[in-house]
C-alpha cells in the first residue's frame, strides 16, 4: 500500500526536524560537550545516513518518471555517503576534514534535484511552489555547511545550519498533494482539493 506523497513528505519533515533540533543543541553546547557521550556522537551521522536510506523506498515506490527516479536515487546515495563520511570522522577512521565537504555537496545536489524534478512552474500548485522553494533554500543554504568546513567552531554557522534543517522541515510539513498557493491552483492540477482548502 503506497502512501500518498504528502504523507511521505511529512514523515521526512519529522526526521529533518529531529535532525535540526539536535544540530541546534550541538550549536548551543559546543561540539566538545556534544561528543562527550558515545551515542550522541553517533546520532547525527546516523540520522543523516538514515534519511538517505529512507529515500530508497521512495525511489522504488514513486517512479513517476525517469527524472524522479534519478533525483531520488542521487539523494539517497549522497545523503548516505555524507552520513557514512561523518560516521567515519566521528569514529576516527577518516581524518581529513575535507570529508566534511560531502555534507554541502549532498545538500546542494538535493536542492538541485528538487528543482529539476519539479516540472511545473512555481504557482502551478502548492507542492510545486514548495519544491522550488525547498530546492533553492537547500542550494543557497548549502553554503552554511560549506563555511562550517573552514570554521567548524562557529556557533552562528552551526545554529544557521540547524535553522536550515528546521526551515526545510516546516516547508515539507506545509506540502499538500493538491492545494492552491497564494490563491493559485492550475486547472491542470486536478479538481479534488485537499482537506485544508474546504475548511472555513
Amino acid at each position, binding site marked *: *500500500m503506497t*502512501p*500518498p506523497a504528502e*504523507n511521505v513528505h*511529512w*514523515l521526512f*519533515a*519529522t526526521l529533518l*526536524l*529531529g535532525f535540526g*533540533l*539536535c544540530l*541546534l*543543541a550541538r550549536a*548551543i*553546547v559546543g561540539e566538545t*560537550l*556534544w561528543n*562527550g*557521550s558515545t551515542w*550522541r556522537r553517533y*546520532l547525527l551521522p546516523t540520522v543523516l545516513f538514515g534519511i538517505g536510506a529512507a529515500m530508497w523506498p521512495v525511489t522504488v515506490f514513486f517512479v513517476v518518471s525517469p527524472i524522479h527516479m534519478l533525483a531520488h536515487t542521487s539523494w539517497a546515495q549522497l545523503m548516505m555517503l555524507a552520513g557514512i563520511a561523518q560516521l567515519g570522522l566521528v569514529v576516527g577512521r577518516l581524518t581529513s576534514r575535507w570529508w566534511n565537504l560531502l555534507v554541502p555537496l549532498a545538500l546542494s545536489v538535493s536542492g538541485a534535484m528538487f528543482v529539476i524534478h519539479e516540472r511545473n512552474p512555481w504557482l502551478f500548485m502548492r507542492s510545486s511552489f514548495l519544491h522550488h522553494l525547498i530546492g533553492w533554500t537547500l542550494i543557497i543554504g548549502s553554503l552554511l555547511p560549506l563555511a562550517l568546513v573552514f570554521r567548524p567552531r562557529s556557533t552562528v554557522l552551526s545554529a544557521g545550519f540547524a535553522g536550515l534543517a528546521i526551515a526545510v522541515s516546516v516547508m515539507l*510539513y506545509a506540502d499538500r498533494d493538491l492545494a492552491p498557493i497564494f490563491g493559485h491552483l492550475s486547472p491542470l492540477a486536478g479538481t479534488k482539493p485537499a*482537506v*485544508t482548502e474546504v*475548511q472555513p
Partner: protein
Amino acid sequence: MEIEVAGPLERASHTAWRVVALSAIGPLTVLAGVVWTVAQPYRLTLLDPRAHGAWDHIAQPPLLVAAIGLLFHLLVARPLRQTLERSP
C-alpha cells in the same frame, strides 16, 4: 581584581544562558505542535478517524511535531543539560 572576578561570573552566566536555551527547545517544539493542532484541527485525523486512511493516521503533522519535541527533550536535552551543568 575586577578582571579576576568577571571571568568566572561571565562563564557562569554563559553556561546559565546555554542551559535555558537547551531546556527551552523541546517544550517550545511541543507548544508549536499544540498551537498547530488548535489552529488547524482538521490536520489531526484522530478527530475524524473514519474519513481517513491508515497513512493519514500514521502521519499526523501536529502530533509528529509534538512527539519529536517530547522525545528530544527527554532523550537529548535533559541528559545534555546535566552534562552542561556538571562541566567546569
